[in-house]
């Protein structure tokens, strides 16, 4: 079964994503910040990582780059709701630094699921 790691500090989004993905038939595990996300990934690598960008402890871009180092073939989706600078800018940075797909929050569930399918099948 395809394994997906969700790294997201906002609990309601994290749980909602977990449920959505589990319902779609994925094996989901989660972390509430970048640091514990990397630890979880080391314990048990995933096929695909969904990471938020603005997070405490370790933000998403750095997290994403470290995970990419651990497993160059892993698929990464970055999501952001923006902050001091617009989400678009965070996401474009994430894209340049190796995120396979990016989405601005709130994300349409159908779009997210079809992006996951595409990324999983392309590998």
């Amino acid at each position, binding site marked *: 079964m395809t394994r997906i790691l969700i790294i997201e500090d906002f609990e309601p989004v994290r749980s909602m994503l977990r449920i959505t993905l589990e319902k779609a038939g994925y094996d989901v595990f989660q972390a509430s910040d970048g640091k514990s996300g990397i630890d979880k990934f080391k314990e048990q690598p995933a096929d695909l990582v969904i990471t938020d960008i*603005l997070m405490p402890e370790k933000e998403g871009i750095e997290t994403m780059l470290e995970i990419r180092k651990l497993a160059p073939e892993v698929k990464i989706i970055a999501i952001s709701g923006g902050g001091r600078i617009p989400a678009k800018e965070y996401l474009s940075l994430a894209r*340049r630094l190796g995120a396979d797909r990016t989405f601005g*929050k709130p994300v349409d569930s159908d779009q997210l699921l079809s992006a996951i399918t595409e990324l999983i099948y392309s590998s």
Partner: protein
Amino acid sequence: MKECILLAVDDKPDNLYVIKSLVAEHLPHCRVLTASDAEKGLEIARAQNLDGALIDVQMPGISGIQMCRMLKEEEATANVPVILITAHGASGRLKAEGLLAGAHDFLNKPIDNHELIARIRVMLRVKQMEDALRQANADLQMQVEEKTRSLKESEVRFRHIAESMADWIWEVDNEGRYTYVSEKVESCLGYSSRELIGKTPFDLMRPEEANRISRIFSDLAVGNKPIQDLENWNLTKEGREICLLTNGRPLFNEQGDRVGYRGVDRDVTERKRLEAQLRQAQKMEAVGTLAGGIAHDFNNILYALMGYTDLALDLIPRESEAYGYLEEAGKAANRAKELVAQILTFSRQTDVEYKPFFVDEVVKEVMNLLRKTIPTTIEIRLSMAADPLPIWGNPVQIHQVVMNLCTNAFHAMREKGGLLDVRLDRMEVGDECDGTLKNLQRGKYVHLRITDTGHGMDEETMKRIFDPYFTTKPFEEGTGLGLSTSFGIINNHRGAITVSSRKDEGTSFEVYFPILNTEECIDEKMDSEASFGLHGSGECILFVDDDPFIVELNKTRLEVSGYSVVALTDSIEALDLFFADPDRFDAVVTDQTMPNLTGAELARRMLDRRPDLPVIICTGFSETLNRKSAEEMGISKYLMKPVAASELMKTLHSVLENATERKSRQ
């Protein structure tokens, strides 16, 4: 004692000797100069500063009386006191003649020694007193002249100040009627000082303002209090609103009764406007900072809401009542998402793409949309300049602005119907422009005016209409963000918006955008028209450039145009990917200069494997590859950097078309 000089004139030397001896004996501080006739005497008198003269009346040639007259006539000698010495028994007539000639005194011969000395003493005392008096007079005269001069100077100075300062000076009587207004008033209020005499300041105000100010003024006048920094709004002769800052003091007559006020008025309209603008900017900034801060949290919360709503929708049958409710919840969440985006727009938190486009086309589009939705009780009139009006900006946002202004106009006329008048033309913003336009750069502008005949608004409302969240509309109709968003968009386009309105008469918004140089723009337009319709239909394009930004940009451009794009920054990786599945790509677009493997080398290796592959190579001016060698290699097209989007689209479209033709011939 001061030395005195006396002159004795007599044709008889014995007499002179006697006088000299006597004076030497009794008046040691006096020196006696002698002359044997009037001419010599006059000479001495002119040369010396004499304290007195003793002149014999009977002399040959010029007589003593004549000499006395001559002394008195000459300015230098006029102040010399004269004692005439006459023969014994001289007639009263002679004495009278002597006095008329200016003599002070007479001595009769034979001269009595005591009398002579006594008379000389008197003469000297009188002379002293006369001198002191003359000095005092001269001093007084000088003081008067000094005072007069400084008075004149200060008058000139004050007149210059009054004329050159932006402020003007006024005086009013107890009824508040102007009794004096300095000329400066005309340049500000448009009325000459003569026109204002007899009018009151309240005559220049709108009734409500006149009421407010006259109440304040009466309160001050009751206590004879000064007017301090009283701001008041006035109408100029041309009907322009200006804000004056008034300062004044009561004027009293000698009895201590107040006879009026005197003061200074200053035009502070510009300052008020800048203050208002600053306040607006501060508000926007505050909202912007807040927006950036909350957008992140809001988007998270909304995401959870929308996600859970979707999850719930999946669980329940479409026909259940809850399904409909959840759909509504989802819609509401979507509306909130749009709202966050909107707040970010006017706080400049979003990056929108700017490009040249024609405002007139956008306005026409909005009007067409409105015609379909606005009831026929509202007449729409549109007039615009015949030539196109290009600007640099984001057409979607300008669409939003025009739509917002027209919708507001429509709402204002919904109940009673009316006329929506939309005008679009060019105008020049120059130094003569005032108000909001003063802040714009000088130059040509597109001028859009949207006027309605609706319910209008009062001044209070007008002051707040650009404030975020200010609305006069019912909750379900307006968020209070429309005009503040428009304001933000217009500012970002380096434009301006102004409003004028009268309660129950209507409202007029005027919007200004800097116009684009037409020639540049028409090229762009032709470009965009030429590339219009050159859409891909899912062809797979491999795009290679070592600059991640160019890759990013062109990937988006190509995807938007309907291509499927694989974009890479590493040419070796590109080659590997190509060899993994050589038939996957319909065309390749590559940069020439890249580390490890150049574009030409990459193209050569790919073309070795697939000679029919369309390859477009992009190169800078100084690069070694030229068109000829590129063609020899079998490269389809050779483009010089920088490559415009439209150029790339056209080229790509044509190489793909050629490839299809070739295939169909085979």
